[in-house]
């Protein structure tokens, strides 16, 4: 698949510059675009249960978001930002160094450079192969504790002050701290939505995938060649069994977030989803179709984002692109605090009781 197939026009204005609560909306009052083989519908997120059949299994990401952006100081560069993407163990972390929230790297740094993260000694060990803005960094101290004291949520230039607090980044399902950036597909869920889903016979199960810093645009001309960095994931036994049972019984499995699709696909052994834990850098694209899910709830992704290739393997590319054209026309908002998209492989079930 060519990079150009991930491109589309999205007016700059169509981006959420803060949480919907600041726009006078509840979390579950963001818009919901529903794309199926019968076309596209527009709703509010709290209408979600209307579009899912009883027996559906929703799989959510239970990762909680860390205040992973830390002030840093480099002798040659002065004050910089260290956005901590992934903890590797043994004092080693994958870190994105940048000048500021709105000025990305790569910065002119070298292997062996000593610098400070929140006043603590740190050292550049090696650049990540193929992704020169990301560095392996060694820090003797426990960066989680440093984050509690000195960290703030990673943010980018499109957010407006006052900037959201870490609590505003936690989803209803957040339980295991570890994500550098919010697994944002789960953010519109509220207790009343979950209650309505359960009342309709829709079950929820959890995986964990600790999302790293945002991947940039796909750079490789062939999407399949794009380098991804690995992220920690775990598919617990109960979830593996629930997904396998749903597949065998023909009940739909809907992933809440691209992270969930990547975790489930990483645990798929050709016949079933098994319990699994480790690091994954699985790249999903139409040449590597999704076997574990029939649908996806996700935000709206930027032009050239690798996530779009994943969307194209949940539903045909034309349907996704049509949906995005509608979203632009209807003024949907992009980014982590923006609107939501339910993408189903098949039609919405015919049985449609009133919400």
């Amino acid at each position, binding site marked *: 698949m060519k990079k150009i197939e991930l491109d589309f026009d999205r007016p700059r204005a169509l981006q959420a510059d803060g949480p919907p609560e600041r726009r006078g909306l509840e979390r579950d009052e963001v818009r919901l675009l529903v794309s199926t083989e019968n076309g596209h519908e527009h709703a509010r997120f709290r209408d979600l249960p209307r579009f899912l059949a009883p027996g559906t299994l929703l799989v959510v990401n239970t990762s909680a978001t860390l205040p992973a952006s830390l002030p840093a100081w480099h002798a040659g560069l002065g004050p910089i930002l260290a956005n901590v993407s992934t903890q590797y163990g043994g004092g080693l972390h994958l870190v994105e160094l940048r000048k500021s929230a709105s000025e990305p790297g790569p910065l002119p740094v070298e292997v062996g450079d000593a610098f400070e993260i929140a006043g603590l000694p740190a050292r550049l060990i090696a650049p990540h192969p193929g992704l020169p803005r990301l560095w392996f960094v060694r820090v003797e101290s426990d960066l989680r504790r440093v984050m509690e004291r000195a960290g703030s949520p990673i943010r980018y230039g499109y957010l407006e002050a006052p900037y959201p607090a870490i609590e505003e980044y936690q989803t209803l399902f957040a339980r295991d701290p570890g994500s550098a950036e919010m697994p944002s597909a789960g953010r519109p869920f509220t207790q009343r939505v979950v209650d309505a889903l359960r009342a309709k016979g829709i079950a929820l199960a959890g995986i964990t995938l600790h999302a790293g810093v945002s991947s940039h645009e796909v750079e490789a001309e062939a999407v399949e060649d794009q380098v991804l960095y*690995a992220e920690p994931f775990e598919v617990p036994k109960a979830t593996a069994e629930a997904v396998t049972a749903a597949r065998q019984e023909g009940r739909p499995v809907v992933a809440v977030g691209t992270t969930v699709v990547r975790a489930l696909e990483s645990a798929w052994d050709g016949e079933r989803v098994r319990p699994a834990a480790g690091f994954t850098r699985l790249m999903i694209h139409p040449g590597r179709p999704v076997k574990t899910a029939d649908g996806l709830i996700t935000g709206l992704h930027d032009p050239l984002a690798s996530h779009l290739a994943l969307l194209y393997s949940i539903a045909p590319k034309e349907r996704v692109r049509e949906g995005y054209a509608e979203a632009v026309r209807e003024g949907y908002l992009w980014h982590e605090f923006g609107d939501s998209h339910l993408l189903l492989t098949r039609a919405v079930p015919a049985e449609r009781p009133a919400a």
Partner: protein
Amino acid sequence: MNRTAIITGASRGLGRTVAEFLAAQGYGLVITARGEEDLQAAARSLRRHGGQVIALAGDVTDPDHRRRLADAARGLGRLDILFNNASTLGATPLPPLAGYPLAELEEAFLVNVSAPLALIQEVLPLLEESGGLIVNISSDAARGGYPGWGGYGITKAALDLASLTLANELSGRWIGVVTVDPGDLRTRMHQEAFPGEDISDRPLPEVTLPFWAWLFGQPPAAVTGQRYQAQSERWEVNASALEAVAV
């Protein structure tokens, strides 16, 4: 006390890359390779990171040399990683098994199977004291049955089985044993397997760094017995570690 590693075949290719990665993190290193000059050049480069580097040129099939390597690690005070990387392709250009020179097959067994096992035997007590990890470098030739790769592949298959057996025998003790297939890399060894061919499409050994970063961050019990592909799209801990995580 700084963590330490023994790395064989450390003067170039994958061994050199892993040595640089560990040295940059402050590991003390004992490195070896047969050629004195290349090894000392590697040592000078590694010492720029400020840590201790002991470079001992020699042949891993020599028992005295292996003893010297173990003694050097003992002198550093502990041992966290034994990186069994030194290998021979056996006869080159790669002959089919039907006509394989048996003397060279025996030599390949000595270098690729007996020597790493002997080095493991030599440093096992040191590794156990620090809860260390044994990494045996394998190859997809151990499983592929690729024509021409039989001699080398047989030795790597034997090393795979040695690793798994050791992992089982040592389970419950604080030692991990893994084999790693690094995948095709642009190294001198790979070039010798494809004499005269252009191998510039293969990635440099640095492509495997994310895997080593992950592996060396895991507790030995979580990975022992596994066979990893350093360039694959996922690396998993073993099932017993997963149960432990779930509880």
